C-alpha cells in the first residue's frame, strides 16, 4: 500500500513537472495561429481559427529561407572544425600532463567566465584588421565561424577532457605496445570510444550556435549574410513596433522547429550517451 502511494506520489510529481515544461511550448504554438488582437483578448484559449498567414507573413517579412541557409552553413562549418580540434586539445589535457597544462586548461575555462559583450569592441577591431588583400574578416561568414569556434572551445574541451579521462588508463599503453603512434592511438582507439561524448558536445554546441545572437549582431550586420536568430530578432523587434504579435510568435515557432527536430531525433541518443559515457567499465 505504501509503495503504491509512493508510486502515485512520484507519478504526480513527474506529471506536474511534465506539464510545467510542455504547457508554455504549446501556448506558444497556439498563439502563433491566432491573430494579433486575439492574442491579447484571449491569450489562454485555443485559436478561434487557424491563421496560417502568420507563418507566411513571418516567412516573407523575415526572409527566413535565406537566413536559415546562412545559419546552417555557419553552424555546420563551426562544428566540423570545432569537434576535431576540441577533441585533440581535450585529449592532450586529459592524458598528457605536462608542466603548465593545468594552467592552460584553467585558461580555457576562465575564458568562459568573462562577459562576452565586453570583448565585442576589441573583437571588432581585430576582425577589421585581419585582412587578405582588400577583404577583412568583418561581416563574413568565415569570420563569424572562426569566432564561434574560438568561443565554443572552452565548453567542448572541458566536457571532452572529462570523457577522455574516464577511459581506461592502460588502453593507450596496450595500443602502443602494438606499434601505434600517439596520434594513431587517438584517431583509431580513443576517439571512437569517446563517440558518445562527441555527440553530446556536438548537439549542445549546435543548439547554442543556432540560437546565437550577440556576436552575429555586431560581426555580421549585413542582410546578405544574416543568420536566423538575427533575422527573427529583427522580426520580433520590427513587429514589436508594428505590433503584429501573430507573426511574431509564428517567427519564434519557425526558429524553434529545427532545434526541436534535432533534439527529438537524438533524444534517445543523448540519453544513451549520458548512460554509456558514464559507464567507465
Amino acid at each position, binding site marked *: 500500500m505504501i509503495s503504491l502511494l509512493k508510486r502515485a506520489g512520484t507519478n504526480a510529481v513527474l506529471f506536474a513537472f511534465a506539464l510545467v515544461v510542455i504547457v508554455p511550448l504549446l501556448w506558444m504554438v497556439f498563439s502563433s495561429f491566432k491573430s494579433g488582437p486575439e492574442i491579447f483578448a484571449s491569450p489562454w484559449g485555443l485559436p478561434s481559427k487557424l491563421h496560417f498567414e502568420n507563418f507566411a507573413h513571418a516567412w516573407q517579412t523575415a526572409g527566413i529561407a535565406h537566413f536559415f541557409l546562412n545559419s546552417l552553413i555557419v553552424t555546420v562549418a563551426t562544428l566540423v572544425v570545432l569537434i576535431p580540434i576540441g577533441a585533440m586539445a581535450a585529449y592532450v589535457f586529459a592524458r598528457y600532463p605536462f608542466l603548465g597544462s593545468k594552467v592552460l586548461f584553467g585558461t580555457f575555462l576562465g575564458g568562459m567566465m568573462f562577459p562576452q559583450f565586453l570583448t565585442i569592441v576589441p573583437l571588432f577591431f581585430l576582425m*577589421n584588421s585581419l585582412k587578405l588583400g582588400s577583404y577583412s574578416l568583418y561581416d563574413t*561568414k568565415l569570420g563569424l565561424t572562426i569566432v564561434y569556434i574560438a568561443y565554443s572551445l572552452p565548453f567542448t574541451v572541458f566536457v571532452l577532457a572529462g570523457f577522455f579521462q574516464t577511459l581506461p588508463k592502460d588502453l593507450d599503453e596496450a595500443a602502443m605496445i602494438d606499434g601505434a603512434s600517439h596520434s594513431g592511438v587517438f584517431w583509431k582507439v580513443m576517439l571512437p570510444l569517446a563517440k558518445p561524448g562527441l555527440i553530446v558536445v556536438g548537439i549542445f554546441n549546435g543548439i547554442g550556435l543556432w540560437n546565437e545572437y550577440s556576436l552575429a549582431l555586431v560581426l555580421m550586420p549585413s542582410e546578405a549574410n544574416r543568420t536566423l536568430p538575427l533575422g527573427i530578432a529583427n522580426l520580433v523587434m520590427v513587429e*514589436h513596433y508594428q505590433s503584429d504579435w501573430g507573426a511574431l510568435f509564428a517567427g519564434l515557432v519557425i526558429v524553434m522547429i529545427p532545434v526541436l527536430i534535432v533534439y527529438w531525433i537524438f533524444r534517445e541518443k543523448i540519453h544513451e550517451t549520458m548512460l554509456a559515457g558514464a559507464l567507465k567499465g
Partner: protein
Amino acid sequence: MKTHFLALAVASASLGVLIGGCSGGSNESTADKSKHLDVVSFQGGFGIDFFKQAAKEYEANHPGVTISLTGGPRVWEQLRPQFASGTPPSLTWPGWGMDYWALIYDKQVLPLNDALAKPAFDGKGTWRDTFDPALLKLGEYQGQQYELPYHYNIMGWWYNPDTFAKHGWAVPKTFSELIALCPKIKAAGMAPLTYQGQYPDYTIKGFLFPWVISIGGIKAADDAQSLVPGAWKSDAFLQAARMIKQLRDQGFFEDGANSLSHTQSQTDFLAGKAAMIPCGTWLESEMKKTMPPGAKMAFMMPPVVDGGKGDPSAIMIGIEPWIIPTAGSNHELAIDFYKFMTSLDKAKQFVTECGTLTAIKGSDQAKMPETLVEPARLFRQSKTVYSIQFDTWYSTLGTESKHAMEALLNGSNTPEQFVDRLEAEAEKVRQSKKPIHTMTH
C-alpha cells in the same frame, strides 16, 4: 599522424574557401569611393522604405553617386563598434539606444553651422531657414548645430472620442475636471487611465513634466533640466508627484499598469479597457496591426492644474536626430543628400506616407492622417514648445528618474522621497565632471 593532419588541414582550407566564397559579395565597395555614401537608419514604426526610396531618387538625379542605405531596429549596437574603430557611416539616424551626447562631447559629430548658412535646396534663403527654429535648437551645443531633426513627435494624452461621446463625457481640461470624471469612467467598467509601466519615460513625459510646468511655469522645468540646485525638489515637482500619487490612491490607474509594455497598455486602451493613455503621435502607426475593429483615437492635452501659473498651451515635443559623423566619409555629399531629404517636397511626402510630422516649415500643409491634425494644430498655436532632454544629456539622472518614477507609481516611494532622490542624483551630476547644459525659453 601526418596523413590525418594533412587531411584535416585540406578540409579546413576548402571549407574556408567555400564559406568565404559564399559571403555574398565583397565587403569593400567597388563603387567610386569619393561618390559613395553609407547611410544607416534606425528602423521603427514606419520602417526605412521612405529613406531607401529617397536614396534611389538621389542616385538617379546624380549619376555616379551610389548610396547604400541600411537599417535595423537595434542599429546602434552595430554602430557603436564602428564609431570606436573610426569607420562610422557618412550619415546616420542611430536611434534611441545611442548616446548622442557622448559622441558630441568626443568630437565624433560634425558641426553644421556652416552648412546651415548655405542656400536651401530650392535656393530661396538659407538651409537653416527651412527648419522650425524651436526644433533646430534642440540639437545645439555651445552655439553649434550637431543634431539635425528630421521628424518629430508630439506628446500628450489620447482618448477614444466615440466612447466619450457615447457616455456623454467631456474631455477634461483641468485636473479637477479629471478627478470628477474618473469615477464616472470606473462606473462604466473602464479604467480611467493606463500607462506604459515598463517604460517610465512615458509617465515622466505624460504626467510629471506637464504638471510641473502647469504649476510652476516653464521655468520650473527649465531649471531642473539645467540642473539648477534645488530645482528638482521645487514645490512644482512635489505637487506634481502628489497628484500622481492621488490618482494611484484613488484607483484611477489600470490595475497592473506597472508591468505593462507599451504595446500591452496601448492595446488595452484601444480595446476599451482604459479611457485615456499618455503617448506620442506615433501611436497610430505603431498600433495599426493590432487595432481592434472600431477603435478610434484622438489627441488631447494633459489636463492643466487649476490655478497654475504655467502656459496652458505649452506642448511637449521630441525630435529624432540625424548626425553626420566626423569620421564618416564624403561630408559634402552627405550634407547634400540630407538637404535633399529635407526639401519641402520630400518632407511633405514623408508626412503623408509615414504619418509623422517633420521639422521642415510648411510640411504640415501636406495631407496627413486624421489623428495628426489636432496635435499639429496645437503645435502651431502653442506659445511654449519644450522638450525633455535631461535624460539624454545626463544618462545617470535619466536612469534614476525612471527608477524613481517606477517607485512612485508602485507605491514604494512617497512624493517626498521621489523628489529627494532626484535632487540627490542631480547633485551627483553637478559634482561629476560632465558638461552641463542650460535650457531656456
